[in-house]
């Protein structure tokens, strides 16, 4: 009597929101087959728009079959890099201000609003000085309206978080700002990294929360009601709740997902993964099938954090990197990302007309600045206060993009810096366009979805300014891209920092590098041989990487679906939860004898007479806690490992880790 249905296996939807593109793909979780994939432009001002578009592109016919959505995002990394995080007040307790300042370590705090207060503990967890709570509260009162979040880091707080907790209690009584405590993010003892991490986390809280809500909203529109996971910087997954609490952990989430996706798609366990996006190119190593993780703490935009993340290098070079002519009349590529002229002209035909017109003026050798456009990306909200100058500019741009020289003329100024509009770019009310590698591809006929005429015209204009053929310009740009990437690969894989690409550098390093690329030396050849293949990820990977692989004497592997490998990587990870508990001695009053051992967790402290008991307790507590957290995060039958690491004299870090595949039932 039974007519069986065709089976619908559990599907998972992976999404990656990169700097330029948002990718999505639908995977049959059991067979690991990619069923559908799609790419949309990332909409930085509201990522959910791009996410909705990309989900729409996937044509999901049965949203209920989707058992998990997982997302990786460069949101946190970008917000930090572009200074778009929320404004953070950093309260430093027991830090030696003089010492910090004298070593300029304050530059590493990731916020200009940092304040020193009395308090903190010593390396035995004993109070160093009484907490200056009144001072802290007065400062917080005075910061009203100037910061959006607070971070607190107390000296040796992982050993004794009491002062951080007291500050939390008191400060949350007088204001509503979110407050991040250093000891909750890192049990490691580096006080500067802890402060940086806390400050970054605070600056990202609201951003990641909005993001999660936006994704959930996009899911709701498509009737997808499934657990949402976010990729950590080490490629493992965490629940959206965790992610919203600890956004710093999403630093490098995108590149980590790319690497995992690249491995997954290629099936290769040892390789260098190079992900070429619109804005950046990311490098990561796969060893024994795992993404290399840096134990030391990830560095992002020069800020060294205490966040364990994929060991990777991200360089500001991609398909949409700006090609500009410097004052020295040299071409440079990046680091700024702009809208390709081919795309702008495609959207606004007058731009194409203008460029072709300019290109025909054979006498004009100074029109390179005319290749830079500003335009309105979306209208500002009516409620937004604008300066008269800003209003003027917006009126001028109302009927379409204008070149920078035209803008300067209209505004009656000599330099773009005289127009105070950074905030408008930041909020993506305005955007810039210019010549990019994407335009080169148009001119070469290798990728031509938009205006080839505009791209050719722009190249002609730029070539004329440099008294060069357009072909030569292209060659220079590609060579520079290749060189930049090879330099990054060599530095990254070797672990040795290369000399900067300064002109007229006469060091041996520079020579070897140049020679290995260009084989200039007639007698002494040098070569790079990368012993592992390169897995190329991202749509422009082939264009950018073919020469790189050749130069490095290795194979370039472009697995099927490599354009969306990051989205694949978003779902390929395991759910992981870690926990660290510190065990350290309590000293006698004279400080000479160890009289007991503290077991210190985020939430409390227990005391044991014997080190063994303390360690046993810490071990079982850590195990139980990671297990609980992993279950709550939706891990199926998580496996727990516990390890005890010495952490200085008589001190230990007890680390537990629970990992499991996502449980794909409805929670």
């Amino acid at each position, binding site marked *: 009597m039974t007519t069986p249905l065709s089976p619908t296996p559990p599907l998972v939807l992976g999404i990656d929101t990169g700097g330029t593109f948002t990718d999505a793909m639908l995977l049959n979780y059991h067979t690991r087959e990619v069923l559908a994939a799609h790419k949309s432009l990332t909409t930085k001002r509201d990522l959910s728009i791009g996410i909705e578009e990309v989900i729409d592109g996937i044509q999901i016919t049965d949203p209920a079959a989707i058992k998990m959505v997982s997302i990786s995002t460069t949101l946190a990394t970008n917000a930090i890099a572009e200074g778009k995080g929320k404004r953070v007040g950093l309260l430093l307790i027991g830090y030696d201000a003089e010492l910090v300042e004298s070593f300029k370590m304050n530059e590493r705090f990731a916020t200009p609003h940092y304040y020193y207060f009395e308090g903190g503990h010593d390396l035995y967890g004993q109070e160093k000085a009484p907490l200056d709570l009144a001072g802290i509260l007065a400062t917080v009162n005075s910061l009203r309206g100037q910061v959006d979040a607070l971070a607190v880091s107390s000296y040796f707080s992982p050993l004794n978080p009491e002062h951080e907790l007291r500050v939390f209690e008191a400060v949350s009584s007088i204001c509503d700002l979110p407050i991040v405590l250093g000891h909750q993010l890192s049990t490691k003892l580096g006080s500067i990294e802890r402060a940086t991490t806390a400050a970054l986390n605070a600056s990202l809280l609201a951003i990641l929360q909005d993001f999660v809500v936006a994704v959930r909203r996009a899911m709701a529109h498509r009737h997808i009601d499934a657990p949402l996971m976010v990729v950590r910087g080490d490629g493992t997954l965490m629940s959206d709740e965790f992610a919203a609490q600890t956004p710093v952990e999403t630093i490098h989430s995108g590149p980590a997902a790319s690497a995992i996706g690249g491995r997954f798609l290629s099936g290769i366990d040892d390789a260098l993964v190079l992900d070429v996006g619109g804005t950046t190119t990311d490098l990561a190593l796969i060893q024994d099938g795992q993404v290399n993780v840096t134990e030391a703490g990830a560095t992002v935009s020069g800020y060294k954090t205490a966040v364990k993340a994929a060991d990777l290098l991200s360089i500001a070079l991609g398909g949409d990197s700006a090609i500009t002519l410097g004052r020295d009349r040299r071409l440079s590529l990046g680091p700024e990302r702009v809208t390709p002229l081919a795309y702008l002209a495609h959207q606004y035909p007058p731009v194409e007309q203008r460029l072709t017109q300019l290109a025909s003026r054979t006498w004009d050798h100074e029109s390179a600045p005319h290749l830079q456009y500003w335009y309105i990306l979306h209208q500002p909200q009516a409620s937004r206060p604008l300066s008269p100058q800003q209003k003027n500019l917006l009126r001028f741009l109302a009927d379409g993009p204008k070149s920078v020289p035209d803008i300067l003329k209209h505004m009656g100024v000599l330099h773009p810096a005289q127009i105070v509009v950074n905030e408008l770019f930041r909020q993506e009310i305005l955007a810039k366009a210019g010549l990019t590698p994407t335009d080169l591809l148009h001119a070469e006929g290798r990728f031509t979805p938009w205006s080839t005429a505009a791209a050719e015209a722009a190249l002609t204009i730029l070539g004329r300014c440099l008294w060069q053929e357009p072909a030569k310009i292209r060659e220079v740009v590609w060579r520079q891209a290749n060189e930049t990437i090879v330099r990054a690969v060599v530095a990254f894989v070797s672990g040795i920092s290369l000399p900067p690409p300064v002109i007229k550098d006469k060091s041996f390093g520079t020579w070897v590098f140049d020679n290995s690329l260009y084989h200039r030396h007639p007698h002494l050849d040098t070569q790079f041989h990368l012993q592992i293949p390169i897995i190329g990820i991202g749509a422009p990977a082939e264009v950018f990487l073919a020469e790189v692989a050749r130069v490095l004497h290795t194979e370039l592997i472009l697995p099927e679906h490599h354009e969306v490998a990051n989205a694949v990587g978003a779902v390929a990870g395991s759910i992981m939860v870690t*926990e660290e508990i510190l065990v350290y001695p309590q000293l006698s009053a004279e400080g000479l004898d160890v009289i007991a051992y503290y077991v210190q967790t985020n939430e409390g402290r227990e005391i044991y007479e014997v080190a063994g008991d303390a360690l046993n307790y810490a071990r079982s507590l850590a195990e139980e806690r990671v297990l609980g957290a992993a279950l*709550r995060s939706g891990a199926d039958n998580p496996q727990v490992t516990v390890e005890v690491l010495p952490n200085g004299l008589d001190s230990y870090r007890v680390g537990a880790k629970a990992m499991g595949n996502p449980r794909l039932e409805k929670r």
Partner: protein
Amino acid sequence: MELIRIDTQKAYEQLRDRIVRLQLAPGALIDEQQLSAELDLSPTAVREAIKLLAHDGLVQVTPRHGLYVAPVSLEDLAQLSEMRAPLEALCARLAAQRATADELAVLAALRQEHHGIAASDSGRLFELDHRFHQAIAGAAHNKYLAQTLETFFGLSQRLWYLALPEIASLPAAVEKHLDMMAAIQAGDADRAERLMRTHVQSFYDEVKEILAKKLG
């Protein structure tokens, strides 16, 4: 309990009972998957039930960690008694001032029931004590007061179960209700308030003494 699916309700009752009766030990890790299998109820139902228990304060969620049965402490007992003694007293006072004839009839019926219960039947005495407090709370005609006291009663239950084997004064405590009822019936607000305060306080004191020994 109106927005709650029926199997969630079932899971809630069963889990609450396990926690209150200490079958799920204070501080124990809660494994939703396992409980779902044990109760043979859907994961959704168990998850929803746990949310309700968290709202009741019987389950705790640590910030980045799992779900645990809320631990018990003497401190909790002290805080509960500090809240309940004045509120129950206020309640008795208001009841003495406001009880309707119907409510007095209910109190009389409970008194009647009390006569039928053996002093050794601590289960029923316990239940009767609860009803008695609920009836007085109802007679006080303040829904917020009644809700609050009900919540606290729930939280106290577990502590009492911990102490129960050693509580000697349960029948005597319940006996006190008779005096209190007389005061409420007579509309003697001062006396009702005083008796209630003493009743609640002395019971807490006894439980506290027992638990102090147990919990160290």
